[in-house]
């Protein structure tokens, strides 16, 4: 086997002059910051509406400048570094969190080729043959920021928060990664522009609906957003990994979180929602007019903001999960489903490739599903705990500790006939003690 393509470049990229690249870089930076500012206000407004409140409305028109004001304010706040903290890591953590968040949009195609000052270029900073892998890699680097923040604070809550966020992010990243497999199966490439190209006919979000749903769930877990915002669950952990942070450093994490929301939404858009392509009826208008020029930016950001709205909507609607339920959901539900789905998709794709008739596929697939269903009936609904705990059910004497009865503890059984307290002081603690003695 010889490498068929030993170059890293994808056609159409790498040829831009330096100033175009500079413009694009700046543009992405600005998009990130502006979208963050927008999103914060947007979120507060939407949630407020859902709760029949008004939301921020003082700063700027309709309160639109509220988040900018908050940011500036945070900039001038006192910057506390707790004395228990590991200083270097403590300062580095927000930087590590924030830098990767800016990078993901670099590989997201926001539109087709356009002309800027006479130069024809794509509305995408760069593309790689492994662009999606790149996004995953960069996203995982961002996790370090949170983890290190928790670790370096030298305090209990941040540590727990950091751990939780790490565990959560890696768990959901797994599922997220698996949800991509279907896309790659169909697209045959990992380059984002290639994937958008492949969705010209049909969005992957439709043919790979389970993948898309799984991705949507995992993207919320990945960004630590409600209802999955356990790392900073204020009810349990004060503010999670961010407890010890203040001033602009705290703002950095905030910024990173909101940019990440944009990022995952952009990835979802690219991979499942046809990227910058116009939605169906519009795409047919005027021979695809809306898919050329600067129009696609509109569709792209429209889709992104739609997804952001989903974020906000969920936050406004759903209560936070308990941590164990949350992890169970990931490992015991999403993961097996993803695996099965991948196998199914691959099998279907294989069947198409091998030229098997669609009816046959449906027939045999139906039979298989039926068999599985029947089989699933045979599995007992809820397994008994496999090894019955040998907590010897201690006979409980409600009057053991004194003249007043006390309720039984877990594992203790309440005896039907309570004894007369005064006479039974001998058998005070537990009835299995003779047996214990004989074993010892």
């Amino acid at each position, binding site marked *: *086997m*010889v*490498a068929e393509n*030993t170059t890293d470049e994808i056609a159409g990229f790498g040829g831009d002059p330096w100033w175009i690249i500079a413009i694009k870089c700046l543009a992405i930076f600005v998009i990130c910051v502006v979208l963050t500012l927008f999103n914060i206000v947007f979120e507060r407004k939407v949630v407020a509406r859902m709760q029949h409140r008004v939301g921020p409305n003082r700063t700027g028109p309709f309160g639109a400048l509220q988040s900018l004001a908050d940011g500036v304010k945070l900039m001038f706040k006192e910057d506390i570094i707790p004395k228990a903290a590991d200083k270097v890591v403590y300062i580095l953590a927000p930087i590590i969190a924030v830098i990767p968040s800016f990078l993901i949009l670099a590989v997201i195609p926001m539109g087709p080729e356009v002309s800027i000052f006479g130069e024809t270029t794509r509305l995408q900073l760069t593309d790689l043959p492994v662009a999606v892998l790149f996004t995953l890699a960069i996203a995982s680097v961002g996790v370090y920021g949170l983890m290190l923040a928790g670790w370096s604070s030298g305090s209990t809550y941040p540590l727990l928060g950091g751990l939780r966020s790490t565990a959560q992010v890696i768990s959901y990243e797994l599922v997220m990664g698996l949800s991509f497999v279907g896309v790659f199966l169909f697209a045959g490439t990992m380059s984002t522009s290639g994937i958008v190209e492949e969705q010209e006919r049909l969005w992957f979000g439709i043919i790979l609906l389970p993948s898309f749903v799984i991705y949507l769930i995992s993207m919320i877990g990945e960004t630590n957003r409600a209802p999955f915002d356990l790392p900073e669950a204020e009810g349990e952990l004060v503010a999670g990994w961010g407890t010890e942070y203040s001033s602009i450093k705290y703002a950095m994490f905030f910024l990173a979180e909101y940019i990440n929301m944009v990022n995952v939404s952009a990835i979802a858009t690219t991979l499942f929602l046809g990227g910058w392509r116009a939605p169906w009826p519009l795409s047919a208008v005027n021979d695809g007019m809306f898919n050329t020029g600067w129009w696609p930016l509109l569709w792209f950001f429209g889709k992104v903001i739609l997804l952001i709205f989903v974020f906000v909507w969920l936050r406004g609607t759903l209560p936070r999960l308990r941590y164990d339920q949350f992890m169970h959901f990931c490992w015991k539900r999403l993961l097996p489903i993803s695996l099965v789905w991948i196998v199914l998709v691959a099998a279907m794709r294989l069947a198409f490739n091998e030229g098997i008739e669609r009816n046959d596929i449906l027939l045999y697939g139906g039979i298989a599903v039926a068999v599985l269903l029947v089989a699933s009936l045979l599995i007992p609904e809820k397994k008994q705990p496999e090894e019955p705990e040998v907590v010897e059910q201690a006979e409980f004497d409600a009057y053991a500790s004194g003249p007043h009865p006390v309720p039984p503890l877990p594992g203790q059984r309440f005896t039907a006939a309570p004894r007369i307290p005064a006479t039974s002081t001998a058998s005070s603690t537990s009835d299995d003690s003779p047996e214990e003695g004989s074993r010892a």
Partner: protein
Amino acid sequence: MSPTPYLVLSVILFSIGAAGVLTRRNALVAFMCVELMLNAGNLAFVTFARMHGNLDGQMVAFFVMVVAAAEVVVGLAIIVTIFRTRRSASVDDASLLKL
């Protein structure tokens, strides 16, 4: 593309890892240094694969990743167990076995 810088980098990584294993007393750190060494090997493999124009080296890199993962699992299992038992992850504290 000259492979030399990559090889040099890989040798440097390897040396850092080896030095780490030999000098650091914390089992986890030593273990991470081993992982660094494995990755240095990967880098070398991929570089050589590029040099020779075949994919064998890339393939090895994949497998090494698997092995490294398995090693992480086994290593963490052992380290955590001993950590739980004696509440320390230092190699020096593990001193019941001496010549």
